[in-house]
């Protein structure tokens, strides 16, 4: 029996050609939602044994090692992303390593859609749909931020800077809404360049 065909939320949407940023759906990442107590040493070491690194404990941070990325979601929740084909195996290894330790690891690879955004206008485009100011200095590579974006629950991870690459995650049923919102707000000619040098303004 072969694996069933996968149709992601955004696979049938067209990308307009008048955008100020590059936008695509990330389809090859799997996701595991991991819950556990941050002061439970058994839990932390079991997770480390499987992942090869410590779960990030700093709020709004992420740890990336090899093909694994672990995002801090809250004090007792993490989202681990990995190559989609490895998800079932990684999930099984986590469940096994965690054993009786109070924890919950769930494969949620299809629960969210990931939209990859790339370019100089990413931050200001997101600021048209969210009250988070991504131009503040703390928003460096690796930062994770959960937020309301385009009036829906969303989360962003800064993959790298210069050029900016962001991954926007929204629940699957909202994916097309977030996609359409970005298409509407990232149109050429509508960019906002917040702060920074500019032409001298008119004066009286």
């Amino acid at each position, binding site marked *: 029996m072969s*694996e069933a065909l996968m149709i992601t939320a955004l696979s049938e949407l067209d990308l307009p050609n008048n955008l100020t940023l590059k936008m695509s759906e990330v389809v090859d990442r799997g996701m595991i939602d991991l819950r556990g107590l941050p002061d439970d040493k058994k839990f932390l070491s079991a997770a480390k044994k499987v992942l090869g690194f410590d779960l990030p404990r700093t709020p709004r941070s992420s740890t990336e090692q090899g093909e694994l990325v672990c995002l801090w979601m809250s004090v007792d929740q993490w989202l681990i992303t990995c190559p989609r084909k490895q998800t079932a195996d990684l999930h099984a290894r986590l469940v096994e390593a965690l054993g009786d330790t109070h924890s919950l690891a769930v494969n949620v690879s299809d629960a969210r859609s990931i939209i990859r955004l790339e370019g100089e206008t990413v931050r200001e485009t997101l600021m048209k749909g969210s009250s988070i100011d991504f131009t503040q200095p703390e928003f460096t590579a690796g930062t994770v931020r959960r937020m309301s974006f385009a009036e829906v629950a969303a989360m962003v991870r800064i993959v790298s800077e210069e050029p900016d690459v962001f991954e926007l995650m929204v629940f699957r049923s909202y994916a097309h809404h977030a996609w359409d919102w970005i298409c509407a707000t990232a149109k050429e000619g509508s960019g906002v360049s917040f702060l920074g040098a500019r032409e001298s303004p008119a004066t009286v």
Partner: protein
Amino acid sequence: MSNNPYRVPTAGIGDDVGRLIDPKKQIDFRWNGNKFAGFEGDTLASALFANGIRVVGRSFKYHRPRGVVGLASDEPNALVGVGSGNLQEPNLRASQVELYQGLEAKAQNAWPSVDFDIGQMNSIFSRFFPAGFYYKTFMWPQSFWKNVYEPIIRRAAGLGVAPGGADPDTYEQFNCHCDVLIVGGGVAGLAAAQAASASGARVIIADENPQFGGIGDIAGGSIENQPQTAWIRETAAALAQAENVHLMTRTTVVGHYHHNFVMMHERVADHDPALLRSGAPRHRLWKVRAKKSIVASGALERPIPFANNDRPGVMLSTSVRGHLIRYGVAPGYRGTIFTNNDDAYRTATALVQAGVSVARIIDVRPEANGPLAEEAEKAGIQISTGMAICGLEASVGGKQIKSVRIAPYSGSGRVSGAEEEIRCDFVAVSGGWNPAVHIHCHNGGKLDFDEGLQSFVPRPHDDPMQTIGAANGTFGLQAILQEAYQAGEAGGQSSKSAKAGAGKAPAAESVSENALQPIWFAPATGKYNEGNKHFIDYQNDVTAADLELAQREGFESVEHTKRYTTLGMATDQGKTSNIVGLGVLSGSTGKAIPEIGTTTFRPPYTPFSLGSIAGTQKGSLFHVVRRTAVFDWHGENGAVWEPIGDWRRAYCYPRGDEDKHAAINREILTVREKVGILDASTLGKIEIKGPDAGALLDRIYTNTFSTLKPGRGRYGLMMNEMGFLFDDGVTVCLAESHYLMHTTSGGAERIAAWLEEWLQTEWTDMQVFVTPVTEQWSQFAIAGPKARALLEKLEGDVDFSPEALPFMGCVAGTIEGCQARVFRISFSGELSYEIAVPSNNGRVFWEKLLEAGEEFGVEPYGTEPLHVLRAEKGFIAIGDESDGTVTPLDLGLNWAVSKKKADYIGKRALELPHLSDENRKELVGLLTDDPNEVLPDGAYAVAQVKDKPPMDMIGQVTSTYWSPTLNRSIAMALIEKGRSRMGEKISFPLEGGKTVKAEIVSPVFYDQEGARQNV
């Protein structure tokens, strides 16, 4: 001159007059349909002056001709409509409309034309239209207000008209944070920005005008030994180069809210529609969170009301000077100046220097001395001190000023004695300055009255907000700069990475000015008093007499006076009229102005577009529509949609000529006779795991779950603390201490939050994790006698036999290459399964089900057939049978309400007398006497039918359908003591006098023994 009647000959040549226009670049525009030309840099107001047009609109109530009064956003009079059709925008201030090629503008509230207006009759009969006229006159008969009076009044009174259709332009919003937000880009704002940005702080400085500099170009004085304009230019340029500063023009700070949340309205493309075509939004609404805000909003010049002071050509003094120096236009050929302060002398001198005659400076003060008066005298201008304007003569119709009359004015406010008539065609008025305290006041800022300025000034604000410069009542140039620097530097230190301070404020020089003498009202004299009006609020046509009348009629509080007379309630929010109105009230009541108090300053500072409030949220982005993985398939196959929560679910799938009813009936019979499939992906799904998971479920549900064995499921009910039913669903045990809860579609997020709240705030000792997984799974119901046969055709490792998977069993496996969870549950009463597969496989799996079921006649069914199927079986639906006031016991669900468990949410509440009362409404079934009669949803049952209400109501219909299975109507209802009334006939009086009778029966209409699902 003949082409440009009021444009002074030297306009645009040199830097003295017309400094903002370029006479080499002509701009064509249309006014009331006629072609005119102006220059690049003109506003609509200045271009109209240049073309000899002084009447730009008709007033709100009396339809009097009106012209330009102010220089910018303070303009109360010259409201115009710009654009046409669905692009037309009403009520824009002509002084703020920038001229562009092809601009179309028109006058408002005028019929048939602005030059000849029939409504002017109102003015002739104006003595019959006093304050409160509408309240007093149109009282009777009551029904006439809505149908007769109001439509007529609305047509005659009012401002511009709304645009003709949907707005094709785009709007958007932008959110940001900053260390320092500076409101206003005049000298004070620029200096504060300079000081604040020196520390490295993130600074936003916003000004509502197209240029920075406020009125620095017409205010005189010098900064660092150069004209103010040079300093302004250099400072703004330096700020533009800074990496940490954001400069904004055409951006009005419209509101200040809690915690320094500030809303700004940026007019991105109004001045240049070409920007729209290149993708720019028309307006952008900024939502800024500022650590500190500095208000440098300047001051508003106030007029002095005198007889017929609304005639076109009566303008504020700085407006006359600004129009002259910026655009090279004058409001006429021969002006008079009416003032109580020194600044207006600058206007007189500037006019004469530009070649416009000034007939007289009329100063209410007994003496005029000081450098500005001397300069005016040197320019040969005649000055009359201790005098006031007591009359104004205009041409018939009031469009052209001919002369003013002046008379001696005593400090006590009396005008009497020898009069003199002065020929002139315009009047520049200055009654002093009101600090623009609006932004300071929006979020509760308080005011103090300054006797020297005769105006209100801000008291220190509770928010991290500081008002500086003229907005703070500080008028000396050097004092303004020092105040701005101090505020800017202090603000800059709010940055996390603040560097060293800004240094010393620049040095400035300005001429000294004498104190003003307060004057709120120059009454008309003698017979001129008859029929003359002294306008306080131009935009709402409120006169000094109206305010006095309101006092006489007992509207003593200023808030009552405001609402009775509409003073300050127009689109300008009383910018020019507010303090003057208070002054008039002070004079008529004998109370000091501070005793009278002010009315409330509310956002917005100026009107701004509804489009910017909507922002990106319009059309398909107005509100999210959540889509399941099979959403597109439903759409492609003719689904009629039903919104459930934010989801769109297929309601039914009409085929060919079928209407909805036919489709629903077909889909129901397919499930009853063959097999149907339903997209149930929207059902809430929550994984619950931990040593205390079973105990948690026992507290959340009314029935017991801790006894549930792995691989088994149970239907459960949830109550809130008040004992009311609020969600239901099947929870299955996946493994030891590991459960999967199903909730209603609309309840998914609410229930997840409910569980977290109990765990995080009340039962913190419980070891349980809760993870919502609704979006991970596509879930489909396969229901009908052929359901098992269909599933057995699928390739996979799941055994669907009744032995391996009995009713309420659950199993995991792989089906058609998909990881699958199979639940044998039924909401239709038929043999039924629900299968969950990962969402990205959902569409493929759905199509596999259809393919495998083809030989059995499978069809998809929608939410309406789902509801009829469950109603035939007497299954309740949350939100139909429950409405937040219904307990599980009311619904006869006693079997699911544990009597053994020690406690669970809502248990105690069920003991309360009103919930255990035997007279409560109980769920019953209804069969109408006429089987073809379907009761309306929500229909009331009454104890006894009477000719007309009121009748004693004994209950209401909760679900009502046509059942194709039973070929008759069925309904469920909550009826007082319903279960003890089995077999009774009750009546439902409907609209139109019809009464439907129905028999009370069991709510289970079909397959009462449940044989169909146990196969």
